[in-house]
């Protein structure tokens, strides 16, 4: 494939994807971002590093993850649906791909500690896991609200030897966990890597995380060929910051497939946001008329973020990907639908993508369309929350 023609290409030297991206960070962090960019560029061009990354994903991460034809759901909806099973990866979501890459890079840079932000806890658990594997010290920042609704994940991280810091500033959710991780990073940047969990933040994070996650899309494209299905008509993924979507889109961006990102209605940066600068990037953000960032509200902690990765903002602007919103009220139904029809309990985040497919079957999704959905995570972490919602006291 001709590199120059790639839709999801390497960003320019300022880290721009079209009008979005960049590096809007305090001077104290600029040298660390530059160091990281050059370390990643070298590592990603180093066959040995790439081979180690892939081998850890095979031997530890549970890759390749399978593709499951969703036969009963397909019949029910009049579609031809296939699921990329990231829920079967180690730690229960796609997050493991990124953290394996970033922790290997941490070692390569000679750093001994990682910090991370987490919303639902999936990225925090994945980071704690990958850090334990390499003997790196690990601290995870989590909004106080999220530590309550995802308390089992807090305990999981602690079991894995990580320290979890409850963040009480601002809205006490993911956005504030990112703020706090950035503030911590300023104080310890010489020995600590900030293991950012999504395709967001300052350059090179959006690009690097997409590259680590592109294993999803590359694998899926190959598997769809092996299944003799080929290029699907639609590729669908939920989007908070957008890492699972970026990962699967990367395998199909240069194909004829329509790319669909599904946001939570209360955190729909593409549908309801406007351009702005937050967390080191220029992207689409939920903000008020004065440029103050608004709080996102979603049933799922992982989509509770007022922004979106800059490459998604770019893909939306140039029309290569489409973004739609799903309200909280449709999410539990979609979770039950997939559980009962296919024997797969999806994460609440992932259920947004299922809800969109169910809603648009026969609408935007024509009869018998081939749909590849990224099952980004499993629902075990959400079971207590879902039970509470289904049995009103």
């Amino acid at each position, binding site marked *: 494939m001709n590199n120059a023609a790639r839709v999801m290409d390497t960003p320019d030297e300022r880290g721009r994807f079209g009008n979005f991206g960049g590096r809007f960070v305090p*001077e104290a962090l600029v040298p660390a971002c530059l160091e990281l960019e050059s370390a990643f560029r070298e590592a990603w061009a180093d066959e040995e590093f790439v081979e180690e990354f892939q081998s850890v994903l095979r031997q530890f991460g549970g890759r390749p993850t399978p593709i499951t034809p969703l036969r009963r759901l397909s019949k029910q909806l009049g579609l031809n649906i296939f699921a990329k099973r990231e829920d079967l990866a180690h730690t229960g979501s796609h997050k493991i791909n990124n953290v394996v890459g970033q922790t290997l890079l941490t070692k390569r840079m000679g750093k001994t500690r990682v910090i991370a932000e987490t919303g639902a806890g999936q990225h925090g658990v994945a980071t704690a896991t990958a850090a334990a594997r390499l003997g790196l010290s690990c601290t995870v920042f989590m909004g106080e609200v999220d530590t309550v609704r995802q308390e089992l994940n807090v305990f999981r991280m602690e079991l894995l030897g990580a320290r979890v810091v409850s963040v009480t500033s601002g809205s006490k959710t993911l956005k504030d966990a990112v703020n706090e991780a950035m503030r911590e990073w300023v104080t310890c940047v010489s020995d600590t890597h900030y293991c950012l969990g999504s395709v967001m933040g300052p350059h090179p994070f959006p690009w690097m995380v997409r590259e680590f996650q592109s294993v999803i899309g590359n694998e899926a494209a190959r598997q769809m060929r092996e299944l003799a299905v080929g290029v699907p008509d639609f590729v669908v993924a939920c989007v908070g910051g957008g890492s699972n979507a970026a990962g699967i889109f990367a395998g199909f961006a240069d194909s004829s497939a329509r790319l669909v990102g599904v946001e939570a209605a209360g955190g729909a940066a593409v549908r309801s946001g406007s351009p702005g600068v937050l967390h080191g990037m220029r992207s689409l953000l939920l903000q008020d008329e*004065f440029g103050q960032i608004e709080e996102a509200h979603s049933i799922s902690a992982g989509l509770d973020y007022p922004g979106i990765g800059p490459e998604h903002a770019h893909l939306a602007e140039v029309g290569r990907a489409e973004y739609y919103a799903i309200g909280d009220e449709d999410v539990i139904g979609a979770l039950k639908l997939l559980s009962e029809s296919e024997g797969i309990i999806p994460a609440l985040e992932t259920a947004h993508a299922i809800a969109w497919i169910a809603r648009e079957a026969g609408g935007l999704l024509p009869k018998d369309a081939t749909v590849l959905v990224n099952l980004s995570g499993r629902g075990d972490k959400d079971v207590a929350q879902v039970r509470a919602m289904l049995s009103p006291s």
Partner: protein
Amino acid sequence: MPYLVAGSTDQWVRHVEAAVLGGADAIEIGIPFSDPMMDGPVIQAAAQIALERSTTFESVCGELETLDVDVPLIAMTYYNVFLHHGLERAAGRLRAAGVLGAILPDLAMEESNPWRESAGAVDLATILLVAPSTPADRAHRLAQASEGFTYAAARMAVTGVARDDGDAARVVATIREASDIPVYVGIGVSRPVQAQELSKVSDGVIVGSALVERIIGGSNVADTESFVRSFRDALDE
């Protein structure tokens, strides 16, 4: 140079005047932002209070216009506040309100051209920070590009209170290699004795969290005046 968060109390303009009476050479005015990435708990809390009191960029500029002081006013906020307002409009509005310079801690030099053009068009200075982590060649470029003065971060930390001088001497020395622009030291400067020490290597200090903590704790304007005077006296000794 004391730092105050605009709107953190309805008396904030009176506190600015008191700081001038207490001997401030310039005043740094923080315009609150919802996600202050470079600020520690004290200034975060003050910004949150200010936002809850419906403080906006326009309300701050409006109140600054009522202020009659003869020292330079420097605005400090995060880039999104200006970006959302429109860079040219924001620069023009600040200048009309009597502000002479702006500090945008999340606007890295590489991304700063659009803002510098807008600010330059109305003679509003853009003040750049140099951090202890900044390599010497980059520090030289920052010092040469900074206008009015250069802000030397004394330590690798967000704003707050500290007891020592951190890396201030080294950061200032690096800046001096490339430029004779005045250098002010900030981040963690909270006591007159620190200011006195730091004034031996720099042109001045910026005192933020220690003052803001008093103001949001309910101290009156006379307290602010005497607090600033304690620094003035230490510097003049």
